[in-house]
């Protein structure tokens, strides 16, 4: 994919202002990014999800499923866990407004963040290296709310992966020691 400019946005006057007026401008900035990508979000086509998966999704739309899976593959070990499957279950019991906020962040990653990082294609269509560059730009964003949204996505991915006993040997973590009847 063609890269337009640096993936790391420098500190801008807006960023400085946001730091001092974090909440109001933070929400504003997220709203602008989400709003600017709204048209693209509505065009939620071109996402291929197997019919059986599409049929069992509880809260995610097919495009959200594809994007969350792609995000998860870059945040934790690629191919070892399907973060989207976990998220679809986990988000089901989340408060509706929190779930909506999180899914807005998914839209930002898919449509807004690649543009801000210099790519003309949506996140799920980028190469792994390019996706890492986009995620790095979010991880290092000077906008606290963007960072917070990214931390929320990381939390979902890490929960999906590190809940699995298969992930523990690499850590040297032996797992629970609850009475055998519970394990």
């Amino acid at each position, binding site marked *: 994919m063609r890269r337009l400019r640096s993936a790391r946005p420098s500190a801008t006057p807006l960023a400085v202002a946001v*730091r001092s007026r*974090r*909440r109001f401008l*933070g929400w504003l900035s997220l709203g602008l990014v989400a709003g600017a990508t709204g048209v693209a979000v509505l065009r939620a086509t071109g996402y291929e999800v197997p019919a059986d998966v599409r049929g069992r999704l509880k809260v995610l739309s097919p495009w959200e499923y594809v994007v969350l899976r792609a995000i998860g593959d*870059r*945040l*934790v*070990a690629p191919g070892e866990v399907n973060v989207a499957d976990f998220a679809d279950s986990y988000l089901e*019991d*989340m*408060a*509706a*407004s*929190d779930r909506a906020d999180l899914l807005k962040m998914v839209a930002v990653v898919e449509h807004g963040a690649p543009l801000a990082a210099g790519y003309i294609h949506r996140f799920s269509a980028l190469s792994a290296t390019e996706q*890492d560059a986009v*995620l790095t730009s979010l*991880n*290092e964003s000077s906008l*606290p*709310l963007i*960072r*917070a*949204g990214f*931390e*929320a996505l*990381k*939390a979902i*991915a*890490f*929960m999906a*992966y*590190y*809940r699995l006993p298969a*992930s*523990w040997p*690499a*850590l*040297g*973590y032996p797992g*629970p*020691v*609850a*009475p055998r*009847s*519970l*394990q």
Partner: protein
Amino acid sequence: MIHQGRKLSADTNLDADVVVIGTGAGGGMAMRELAAAGYQVVGLEEGPLVETSQMTQLEDEMLPKLYQERGGRMNQDFSIRVLGGRCVGGSTVHNINLCKRLAPEVLQAWERGHAVSGLSEKELAPFFESVESELSVSLIPESDRNENNRVLERGVHKLGWKGGPLQHNRVGCQKSGFCEVGCPFAAKQNAAKVLVPAALAAGATLYTDTQALRILHEAGRATGVVAALLDARGQRHHTLTVKAKAVVLAGSAIGSAALAKKSALPDPHQQQGQRLHLHPGAPVVGLFEEVIDGFRGIPQSYECTEWLDLSPNSDRRVWITTAFAHPIGAAVTLPGFGKTHFEWMQRYRHISVLTAMLHDETSGSVGVKSDGRAQVEYTLNEADRDQLAKGLRACARLLFAGGAKRVLVPSHPPVELGDESALIGGGSITAIPRSAAESIGLAAAHPMSSLPMGDDPKRSVVTSRGQHHQVRGLFVVDGSVFPTSIGGPPQIPIYTLSKYFCTHIAHFLKS
């Protein structure tokens, strides 16, 4: 008798002497004290009853069962994770069992600065003694100190700083290290094990999965509570109404203040929910050559008090102790993602974590979201940011003194130090910049002061006896009543104040 809201299938109306909202340290104590005194008590708990046989020690299973908002409650700008209990026993089910009395300096400050009466160290001593005896409070023996806490101890000794062992309320601890997700060995001598069963044995009735919606009051007098019976997914399906002579509020400083607002309690001086303190804290990670295995053993057994002076207007307001997490919690704390993050996770057995917790001056607030949940508004003030920066640097020095080869501050961007030379003297400012204290993620488990007590109704919400200034028969018995931050673990102070307030609640009921 226990009724599970999820299993009831009709609207229900009850009469009682007293209805208690919440079953944590404050509510559990109130239920037991008042039931034992012969009063007809109905307890309401928003969360479920989680038996020890259900404590699987798995984070992804236990966090949603035991914590408010599944462990994900955040403040308004998502900079602080605010933890609180949502099960029978409240936060005492997942706390780390540290036991400290209210410091004399704090009690004196309340008396002199906040018009609190009758709560001197001497007056509270018999109540503290009774609570400590009942909850089997004891010094954590040196032999039970895990390597993470030994790191802190070594650091304190090497630097010549103040510190020492902590007290806890465990009996039969198996040192499994999973305190924050509930103890399957029933070692915690908490509200769920000690107080609620005793209340039930004395005749109290408990409704779980039952969320208080509003406190009923007429002409300045509390008359009961309307609550929602919740299904297994937390959705309201029927209503429970309890008419009572007294209402005892113990839903934590966040839940209680939110309920006060939802109930439209008279608040002529706009004090309700306006003085929230949180004890926010941040972690610092040390990397060691040797194995630490901080996930095993008693999580917190040693403290550093070098940077903690509880006198009013102190410039030392940081309490340092250990912090550790199981894999999901650790993953969320460590910086980055992908390969970089995984490299840190692979060092899991070799990391030690300390936390700098603020005895905060910042005043936040509690509001109500459009969906009825509590809204926590809290942004650290500049003085507290300075304290946090000092605390991060102090933690780094302790880790190096304890033997760390590298130290990581998981701020944005993360700060990684290869040696301690840059921390000492004038170098301290550049080694861990103040900006680290502005960007680091915080966690808070001690909400306080949202319905503060005092005898001046213009500056407080409840009296020094716990009764609402404007609504007779409404008592608050949780950390909401602390006029200030207390600078230490709040469970013993809450148990104790609740026990003390119950003497006044009983007097009120008699009259």
